[in-house]
């Protein structure tokens, strides 16, 4: 939609403001917005969470069922991440076949969760080679005011920690009427969160609003987590056309641990 494009005026203004380390909402360039997590959004899902980050709002639901393992991973459960950019969330989203951003969001979340090893998929096996648990993560943006990816990653982690197994019938099917209190086999230490850095001119910004996001030239998303006391990058994806310089990526790597700890501190207070 053409009306979504940024005007020259706004781009110039934002560049000038970023050079002064200022933003419209009073944050500094690398300040995150505060977020809230709420559970119990869906009573039909095994686990759910709603994340509010400024005006951005995302609902994540976890559904569990039994199924056959994939041929290349007979000894592990299945993880599926799907997402849908509802037209409700933003005038930028249209209904119809998923376009690039609608494919990028769940794929990045999938990569981040899978590669961090947050879920021990091997513990999801019911009968090796025949029956395993399938964990489905559904991401629904309710309102997009920028940083959808980062809010969704917090939502995914919170919802996965909120999920409880359904019961199991005698013929190894999920019994949704008899829910158990058993939680997913999650690592206590490893919790991945994604951070998307946007670049406008020579300035790096974190957690942009939609207005800022649209004005920016390029972006890069890092999914990071902690393992054995060390930080690790689980996923990485660059978008748009402009390049990042080596020095900029090195600077991002220096910023990431601090931001990760900030988010973790808040997120852990929500995870029981």
């Amino acid at each position, binding site marked *: 939609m*053409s*009306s979504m*494009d*940024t*005007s*020259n*005026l*706004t*781009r110039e*203004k*934002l560049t*000038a*403001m970023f050079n*002064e380390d*200022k933003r*419209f909402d*009073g944050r500094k360039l690398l300040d995150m917005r505060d977020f809230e997590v709420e559970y119990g959004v869906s009573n039909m899902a095994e686990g759910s969470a709603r994340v509010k980050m400024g005006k951005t709002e995302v609902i994540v639901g976890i559904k569990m069922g039994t199924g056959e393992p994939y041929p290349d991973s007979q000894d592990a459960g299945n993880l599926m991440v799907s997402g849908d950019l509802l037209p409700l969330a933003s005038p930028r989203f249209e209904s119809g076949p998923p376009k690039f951003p609608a494919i990028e969001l769940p794929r990045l979340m999938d990569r981040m969760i899978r590669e961090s090893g947050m879920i021990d998929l091997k513990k999801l096996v019911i009968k090796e080679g025949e029956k395993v648990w399938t964990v489905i993560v559904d991401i629904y943006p309710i309102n997009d005011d920028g940083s959808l990816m980062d809010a969704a990653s917090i939502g995914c982690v919170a919802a996965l920690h909120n999920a409880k197994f359904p019961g199991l019938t005698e013929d190894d099917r999920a019994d949704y009427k008899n829910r158990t209190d058993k939680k997913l086999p999650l690592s206590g230490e490893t919790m991945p969160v994604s951070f998307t850095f946007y670049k406008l001119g020579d300035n790096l910004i974190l957690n942009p609003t939609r*207005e800022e996001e649209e004005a920016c030239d390029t972006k890069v998303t890092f999914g990071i987590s902690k393992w054995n006391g060390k930080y690790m990058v689980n996923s990485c994806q660059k978008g748009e056309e402009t390049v990042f310089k080596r020095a900029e990526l090195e600077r991002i790597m220096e910023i990431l641990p601090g931001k990760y700890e900030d988010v973790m501190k808040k997120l852990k207070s929500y995870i029981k």
Partner: protein
Amino acid sequence: MENEINEAHQESKEDSVSKKRKIVVPGEFIVKGEDFLPGDGAKREGDNVIADRYGLAEIAGRMIKVIPLSGAYVPRRGNVVLGRIIDVLFNGWLVDVDSAGNAFLPIDESPRFINRNEMDQFLAIGDVLAAKIWSIKGRGIDLTLKGRGLGKLDGGFVFRINPSRVPRVIGREGSMITLIKEKTGTNITVGQNGWIWIKGDNLDNEIKARNAIEFVADKVHVDGLTDKMEQWFSN
């Protein structure tokens, strides 16, 4: 830019929410009886008058109308709007004014002579301008730049609010916008399509003006907003 504000006010149907007004959703029953006539945003269904839009239902004599609280911008003749150039054609510019269909600004409607070969020196793609809707024909909207305060916008920044909140932001006879201008020392142009341009001497004042406008646009259901706004500024 006084003239725009006065014009804008003629369009404004609401200023403060009186107790008589009720919030309705589409299809909601407003009043019963043949005596009443449905106006804008209302329609008749059998014996009842029901709402056609989400907004505040107002009963003025026999006339029932619903003042919308949300929705897209519906262009009207004489409106001052802000828009963004999306294309430069051989005889004018194509402007996006956030309504259904694009607006056209013919080269003849610019206030000074423009060489047809150098049209993008005056307005290039992505530039923002204030223009007045000169006519609405079946095919589209025609704009003009002939008028005070109209033309290309230089400096400052543009942001958007919901077009249905524009009358509130302007206030009764421009009271609200005048207050914000005075308190922040900025120059503000409010387009009827919900685009707002702010330019001031320094960034802090510009940001303050924007926050003030967003504060007003947020409080739809509040009485005596101008007084509240003065309080807001004193904090």
